[in-house]
């Protein structure tokens, strides 16, 4: 579907010819994000350079009833930046300036196209850093992080994007501009800033973002322990939490992902059934006290080998394999499907056993690499698309894993988002009344439903007429099962 020449001209007049992409070949670049299974070629891509230009583009979309989606680096893993057919992509790639570094306030103000890592790089010489660290941090943008409420391995202690954004300038779906939050914290009124972050680009477009930066800790220490099984590693994680130790990160890799990572980046990991990485940061004496206890807990949970990084180089090596784990799976499998689900930390061992049983049932291998400290699983379902029926079986298995997550009181997604990918699964976790209440919020921001439609919420068009099975919400189960 293409736009009328008059309409294209209107966009050109508003933004300049150099800021418009309309050729079919070039438009294809924008057909998908990091989840490449969902592809829709947009009718037009615009590349604004300022808030005013974003506003102009949104106003044109609004006036001509064109659906639009904002796009950062396109690294999302839930199809959240997939365009709507006949719609417009508003790329924030050119809005990539760091506008202000205010060290005294501990704030950095950026445009949405600035990469996550660039923020830390801007303040590192002064002894500060930006805490959220998604694995894609070298390329993913702050605007995308705001849309997805991105986390990362270190959000266990320091929180997610939502805990580190203090102010947003947003262009609302109707073209108005609003300023949410401020440089100080705790402004009066309902937390519109908090609910905007993580709304997956459905409530508007953030055009200016003020972030909180933190002082680099006095000490960071990293331990790597090998275990006979993921269950033993999981028991150590429970032990650390029970001991009241606030770790900066706790990550587990199972045998399959460990072997793949080792073959790929040669991190020198021990041959083990699973490894656990624990990172502690903060006051040097506190870290020393806690590290002693973590070591003890690992040992009593049956650790076969324990290493503590002697320096930054060794610490980087511990993390290298972990960060390369997804990509490394290409060495052991033709294709793989990355799932993202959350379970209560106390149910980790049980859930891993159930996932293993599912793998046997479906005749597919499942690798597990996960943020154990916060119960965020990333099962990797391995398959080979050349074998008839395998892609479908892999997708089914990945969905069955999600059902386990919900069954034990967890979530459909810990960090990748719902996007287009899981919209039809939302009824597993939320009732019709829950979803309808969320839609009230959406309509307040976007009465015409033009801002990234087709994401988060199940629709008959996306999911067919049959609603998915409803399971009671965890809060409801914790209560007395009341539901209307």
């Amino acid at each position, binding site marked *: 579907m293409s736009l009328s020449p008059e309409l294209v001209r209107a966009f050109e007049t508003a933004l300049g010819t150099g800021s418009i992409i309309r050729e079919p070949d070039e438009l294809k670049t924008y057909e998908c994000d990091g989840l490449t299974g969902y592809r829709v070629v947009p009718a037009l891509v615009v590349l604004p350079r300022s808030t005013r230009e974003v506003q102009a583009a949104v106003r044109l979309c609004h006036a001509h009833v064109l659906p639009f989606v904002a796009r950062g680096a396109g690294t999302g893993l839930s199809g959240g930046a997939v365009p709507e057919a006949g719609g417009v992509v508003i790329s924030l790639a050119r809005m990539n300036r760091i506008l202000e570094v205010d060290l005294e306030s501990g704030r950095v103000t950026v445009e949405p196209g600035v990469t996550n890592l660039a923020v830390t790089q801007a303040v590192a010489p002064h002894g500060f850093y930006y805490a959220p660290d998604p694995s894609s941090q070298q390329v993913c943008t702050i605007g995308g992080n705001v849309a997805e409420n991105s986390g990362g391995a270190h959000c266990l202690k320091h929180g997610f994007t939502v805990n580190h954004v203090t102010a947003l300038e947003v262009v*609302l779906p109707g073209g108005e501009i609003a300023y949410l939050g401020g440089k100080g914290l705790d402004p009066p009124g*309902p937390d519109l800033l908090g609910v905007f972050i993580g709304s997956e680009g459905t409530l508007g477009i953030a055009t200016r973002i003020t972030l909180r930066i933190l002082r680099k800790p006095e000490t960071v220490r990293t331990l790597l322990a090998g275990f006979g099984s993921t269950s033993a590693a999981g028991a150590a994680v429970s032990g650390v939490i*029970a001991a009241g130790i606030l770790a900066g990160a706790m990550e587990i890799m199972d045998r399959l992902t460990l072997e793949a990572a080792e073959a790929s980046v040669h991190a020198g990991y021990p041959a083990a059934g699973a490894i656990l990485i624990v990172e502690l940061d903060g006051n040097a004496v506190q870290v020393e006290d806690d590290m002693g206890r973590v070591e003890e807990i690992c040992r009593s949970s049956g650790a076969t080998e324990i290493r503590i990084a002697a320096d930054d180089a060794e610490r980087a090596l511990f993390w290298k394999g972990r960060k390369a784990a997804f990509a490394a799976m290409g060495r052991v499998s033709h294709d793989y499907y990355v799932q993202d689900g959350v379970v209560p930390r106390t149910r980790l061992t049980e859930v891993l056993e159930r996932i293993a049983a599912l793998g046997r049932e479906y005749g597919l291998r499942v690798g597990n690499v996960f943020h154990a400290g916060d119960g965020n699983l990333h099962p990797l379902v391995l398959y080979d698309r050349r074998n008839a029926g395998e892609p479908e079986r892999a997708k089914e298995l990945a969905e069955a894993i999600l059902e386990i997550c919900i069954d034990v*009181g967890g979530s459909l997604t810990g960090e990748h988002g719902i996007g287009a990918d899981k919209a039809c699964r939302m009824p597993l976790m939320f009732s019709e*009344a829950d979803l309808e209440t969320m839609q009230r919020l959406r309509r307040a921001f976007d009465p015409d439903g033009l801002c990234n439609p087709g994401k988060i919420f199940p629709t008959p068009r996306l999911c067919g007429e049959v609603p998915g099975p409803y399971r009671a919400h965890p809060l409801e189960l914790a209560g007395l099962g009341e539901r209307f």
Partner: protein
Amino acid sequence: MASVSRAEPRTVAEAAAALAEASREGRRVSIERAGGDVVLSTRGLDRVLEHEAGDLTATVEAGIRLSALSARLAAAGQMLALDPPGDPTIGACLAGDLSGPRRHRYGAPRDLVLGVTVVLADGTVASAGGKVVKNVAGYDLGKLFCGSQGRLGLIVRVSLRLHPRPAAERTLVVPVGSTEDAYRLAQLVHGSTLVPSAVDLLWRGAESRLALLLEGSERAVSAQVQAARALLGGEEAGAGVWDESRAWQERSRGRISFPPRGLVQTLGLYPEALARPLIGSAYVVEPAPDQVEAGARGLAERVRAAFDPQGTFV
């Protein structure tokens, strides 16, 4: 004129029925305060529904008071890291965005809420979020209801992130003589690797004090107190200063938000204030001017109209 009636639901179903009836009859509802034709109290909704110590999470009914919840959690060596003055309910903490000195390290209610169940004016019962510490499924309505002042809906259940209780805590109090002095000391803390749980400025001109709370293992706290004294001066003090700080906060009628760099200018406007200098908030004697920008205010009104179209909640 119809007389004011009281509603004291003991279950979510009763709360939903009471609100649906009030809406139908066009009666206005106020939660835990006077003002409505129906005054709704959550005192009957005060149970701990689940405390999963191994997950450091709890799900409670919104009418439970902080003191009752704290006592329950202390038995497991855990705490909800919210310490506002008085003994508010969890629902009030969210709706009023209440926090205390520990806000510096642990955050505001918005940072500790994992999920909520709310009842809208028309009796709709809706949940959002969840009970796990990491979750990005759906809109995070728990945050939206923080600071909502009871005007979007009734909060009935809340899932919360907990923290381990620190083994030791000690307090350092540093005398402060001027706005510049206050700023200098706050910046020293900001630029240091100290990890205080609270940094409060009890501002009263030439006789002001800066108080630091240091928590952790015995050894770590003692090392931090030493480092803090070397950096800032001052003397160790009892925990009384925190009671004083909370009392001060409680009798203040206004709260303002400011960039931490603007501390000097902000303090210059007030002869007295209880400030959290590195958070950028201060509690002042008189009600503060409305700092919300017009676009955000308009948006908040649209959200309110979507959740409570009849304007039932006052």
